[in-house]
């Protein structure tokens, strides 16, 4: 392993130290070592909390900030945070108006959030949840409740965070975050595996010269393994299932292209040029495009495409100001 680490068992705690030192205006420690919060959240707004396993940087910590999330629970690599950590995140966020917990559909996260929510009730903290299910490759549209959450979570945090920042009620923040994630269709493509440092060996394998369409953020199986082809053909392979998932024709969309960790940003732009052509062909207007490493899988090579259908309600929230490591806009 070619890694810049100390003890492989301590990579998460060691990384948290770096975040705290690098960005004290964005991150403050809490009573739980695996929970960080935004130090300047107004106390009278709805709290926005997320959390998940580590290894997806800048998710989840990179979405703490103004107009974004107020506190984040941090798990081991690719492993849900504990219920205790989620509970502490609820406490650390502004919670007088309730807390919106916006997270992805994974078994461990579902269980730990459910338990933390019950514990929070005992402390009179009202918690409501939205569970992202935007990965079209993980289950058909008819079984949307089984779908995993991937980069559409970024859109969910942006919309929910902006709604909370302008003073919306808990029910309204939840409604809009749900609407945001329902408007998202995503798909991933993997070109290589990744290694959890404590394990020391690749989590799975993709043979050189191959790619896996529909791969999940932890290497969950995709739709098909095929020979690696051109960026143009990859763009088509990714667009087809996404465009088939919702009726995007004639509407305005936001596009998010995220690298999975080890694919150069230059290649993400090569990919996007072809995706943009495909969207144009399908009579879809692109309102905005974000390209970069927004939601990764350690050092996996590959990318995700997320398409979000916009309307007059979502658009101003998406464009509202935000300041966080991953998204900063005026």
């Amino acid at each position, binding site marked *: 392993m070619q890694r810049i680490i100390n003890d492989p068992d301590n990579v998460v705690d060691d990384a948290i130290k770096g975040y705290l030192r690098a960005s004290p205006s964005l991150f403050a420690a809490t009573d739980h070592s695996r929970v960080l919060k935004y130090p300047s959240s107004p106390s009278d707004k709805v709290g926005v909390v997320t959390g998940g396993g580590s290894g997806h940087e800048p998710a989840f910590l990179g979405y703490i900030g103004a107009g974004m999330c107020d506190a984040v629970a941090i798990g081991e690599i690719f492993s*849900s945070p*504990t219920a205790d950590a989620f509970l502490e995140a609820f406490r650390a966020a502004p919670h007088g108006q309730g807390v919106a917990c916006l997270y992805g559909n994974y*078994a461990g996260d579902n269980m*730990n959030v*459910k*338990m933390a929510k019950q514990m929070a009730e005992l402390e009179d903290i009202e918690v409501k949840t939205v569970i992202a299910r935007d990965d079209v490759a993980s289950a058909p549209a008819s079984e949307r409740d089984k779908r995993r959450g991937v980069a559409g979570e970024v859109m969910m945090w942006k919309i929910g965070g902006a709604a909370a920042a302008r003073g919306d009620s808990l029910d309204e923040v939840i409604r809009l975050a749900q609407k945001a994630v329902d408007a998202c269709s995503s798909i991933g493509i993997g070109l290589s595996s990744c290694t*959890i440092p*404590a394990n020391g060996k690749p*989590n799975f394998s993709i043979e050189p010269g191959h790619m896996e369409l529909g791969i999940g953020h932890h290497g969950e*199986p995709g739709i098909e393994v095929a020979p690696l082809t051109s960026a143009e053909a990859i763009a088509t392979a990714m667009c087809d299932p996404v465009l088939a998932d919702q009726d995007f024709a004639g509407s305005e969309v936001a596009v998010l292209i995220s690298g999975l960790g080890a694919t150069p940003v230059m290649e993400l732009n090569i990919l996007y040029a072809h995706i943009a052509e495909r969207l144009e062909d399908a009579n879809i207007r692109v309102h905005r495009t974000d390209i970069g490493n927004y939601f990764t899988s350690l050092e996996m090579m590959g990318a995700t495409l997320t398409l979000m259908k916009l309307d007059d309600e979502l658009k101003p929230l998406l464009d509202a100001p935000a300041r966080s490591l991953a998204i900063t806009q005026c």
Partner: protein
Amino acid sequence: MQVLDATHGRDILEELVEVIVDNRQYLSDVDGAIGDGDHGINMAKGFRLCGESIAGQSLSLSKALGTLATTLMGSIGGSMGPLYGSLFMGMAKSVKDKTVLDAKDFGDMLADGREALEQISDAKVGDKCLLDTLVPAIERYRDAVEGGDDFPHALQALRNGAQYGRDSTFDLEAKIGRAARLGERSCGHLDAGAVSCCLLLSRLADSTEHRLEKAAA
């Protein structure tokens, strides 16, 4: 009739801690074949912390199980923290007001643990998970008690059911967890959660059997 004194639970819990800590590497090796390879590391971490927090204390079985549950929920995370945490919390609540357990109480404790686990998870028998061990173990125990077996024989049925369940995961295709990625390739390997569950139930049966005493008349 034989019963278990439920006012002393620390000794039994220390034996459960021991079996997991002793099998740390084995559990990780089993997990490494088809999963993340961290099952032994995580389980040993949680159980060791529990061992440290109950050391030297006088605890009822319910309190000791409850400490294990909260320690696992608070320290492991992932899926195993809530799954095992719920199982032991359900068992702890089941025997909260008991000073002694007879064979039926013991079976109720296991069943209440299972019910708590199933409240937070949709996992089911056949998914290649710890329920594949837990469910047949509990069912065989219950059948034994209902069929008139005494406590020690029912505990043997529990061990037999757990081993049968553990071994049943060898041929199963994983439906949940990281191993589900492998599809058919997950066949031919034991499930790590099913293995740890078998270790725990077998040691619980041993620990209980050694402590059985005649009920006061």
